[in-house]
């Protein structure tokens, strides 16, 4: 008798399947495009983070006689900007604020949007109506206009641009999480949890969230690229970072006057925004297909 039980335990241990997230990660790590993009993002982020240890020139220290050097000038591998500051140092240091401004709004919006969306989807009724109709109002504005309008009204500044971008990204995340939650709440395991005495908060936190977090997460990662472009765009308009802080959008703006003198140096900060944004997009696509269990 006990031998049979031991046998059962043994079999169960052998057949224990890999977890969902482990499977997703495995599939993702076998996709060369996603891995290449992740590597590029990681390298840029690490360089930005450890910039002080990279033995770079001072990104704030300019020189009036060494302005707008060409790419490849000795001592200035990527040239110098309109105030004679080293572009390599400024592009790497610029990654700090640019990446932060591109990621922070999506992360905050993900937390707030998921909470609101899951609450709306699970509780239904009046709560659902109140949350979803408010979200509808924000859908009546094109997202770029909304971001610029809020930043414009609040005034320039890093914090204000984070606030305005967060407000822009909450509504779409709420819509997505509400719709996935609504499709999950009618399933048997939710009823089972309720029958066993779990309260609405526990059901939402334990049973619903675990099942909806994946799709919401993937959707949110697809917003990072848009957020990078918009955040740099706000700085480009003068609504985000203030000079002399290195930030790619702002650098693009101040270098605009130099396109007749040294066009390719002027285009560099935009190339950085483009590279990071396309990598986030491809990575998000890779994650989506890795999580698609059907394929």
């Amino acid at each position, binding site marked *: 008798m006990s031998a049979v039980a031991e046998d059962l335990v043994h079999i169960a241990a052998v057949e224990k399947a890999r977890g969902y997230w482990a499977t997703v990660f495995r599939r993702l790590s076998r996709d060369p495009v996603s891995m290449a993009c992740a590597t590029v993002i990681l390298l840029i982020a690490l360089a930005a983070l450890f910039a002080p240890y990279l033995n770079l020139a001072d990104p704030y220290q300019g020189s009036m006689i060494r302005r707008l050097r060409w790419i490849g000038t000795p001592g200035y591998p990527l040239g110098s900007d309109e105030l004679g500051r080293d572009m390599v140092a400024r592009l790497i240091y610029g990654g700090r604020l640019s990446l932060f401004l591109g990621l922070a709004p999506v992360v905050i919006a993900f937390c707030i949007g998921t909470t609101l969306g899951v609450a709306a989807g699970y509780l239904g009724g009046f709560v659902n109506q109140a949350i979803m109709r408010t979200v509808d*109002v924000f859908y*009546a504005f094109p997202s770029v206009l909304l971001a610029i309008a809020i930043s414009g009204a*609040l005034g320039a500044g890093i914090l204000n641009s984070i606030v305005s971008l967060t407000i822009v990204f909450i509504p779409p995340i709420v819509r997505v999480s509400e719709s996935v939650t609504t499709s999950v709440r009618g399933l048997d395991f939710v009823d089972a949890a309720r029958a066993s005495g779990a309260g609405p908060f526990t059901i939402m936190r334990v049973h619903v969230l675990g099942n909806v977090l994946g799709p919401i997460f993937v959707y949110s990662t697809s917003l990072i690229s848009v957020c990078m*472009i918009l955040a740099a765009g706000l700085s480009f308009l003068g609504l985000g970072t203030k000079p002399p802080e290195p930030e790619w959008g702002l650098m693009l703006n101040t270098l*605009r006057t130099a396109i007749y003198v040294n*066009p390719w140096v002027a285009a560099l900060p935009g190339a950085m*925004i483009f590279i990071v944004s396309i990598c986030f997009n491809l990575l998000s696509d890779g994650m989506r297909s890795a999580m698609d269990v059907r394929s």
Partner: protein
Amino acid sequence: MLLYIAKRLVLVVPVVFAVALVCFLLVHIAPGDPLVSVLPPDASQALAEQMRKAYGFDRPLPVQFGIWVWNAVNGNLGTSIASGRSVTEEVMRAVGNTVMLAVFASLIGFVFGVMFGFLAGYFRDTWVDKLVTTISITGVSMPHYWLGMVLVIVFSVQLGWLPAVGAGPGGWAWDWEHFQYLVLPAVTMSVIPMGIITRTVRALVGDLLSQEFVLALRAKGLTERRVFVHVAKNAAPTAIAVMGLQLGYLLGGSILIETVFSWPGTGFLLNSAIFQRDLPLLQGTILVLALFFVFLNLVVDVIQAAIDPRIKRA
């Protein structure tokens, strides 16, 4: 059909009201006195009071909102603080330029997007599909204001073929003299909608081609051309919805492109309103652009219902 349009119109009323409320409140989340840009810092208390009264900022908020909405319904969006001119006039002058730019840009984006999308959908998983997917993901990830700069560098600075900024010698005529100013901004703006429409159409066509009715159409001996018509008709409602949304995004989101090219449209107006802290102008411009967007969504819904009778019944 008329009943459907009427129903949709009724649903639009609360949205318009909410949009007006958001535009109005924008001014009041703004820190500081709305008159700070025109009043000299050493202005007397009495003068400040007088100005506040003249602009109506001394009344309670709900009353101000009521007056503002009533005036807006009558076509009066107030007076610009910086220039002293009527906001309605300023916005109307700029809106034409923005609409022209957005329409040209979306034409380019829609034509190429639909073409690429169909190609990729029909030739799924071939090199055509891979090429198109690469183009579309590049378009979606492109910081378009940067693309504008790069195009200016190549076509204006280096080659000298096209003008870098401005909208040309006033007015509009169908000649190269005017048209050349439109080329670069329109191409720049078309990249994002092109990428998004390519993606949408590719997914739609791929999906439709794998459905059984296409098999049935082929089985009963229709030519590929007739099958294509069926597929196109089935893809149209969703594609049109996306296109309408994209046109709306271009109208409202042209501020970055207009800044790069100094294009005298609403984005340019918005930019100066923000930096001169001209709040009535900011309010008015945003309201007009948002109403355009709401109206476009309505038109899209009606067109969709006209093409696809299933939508009307829902």
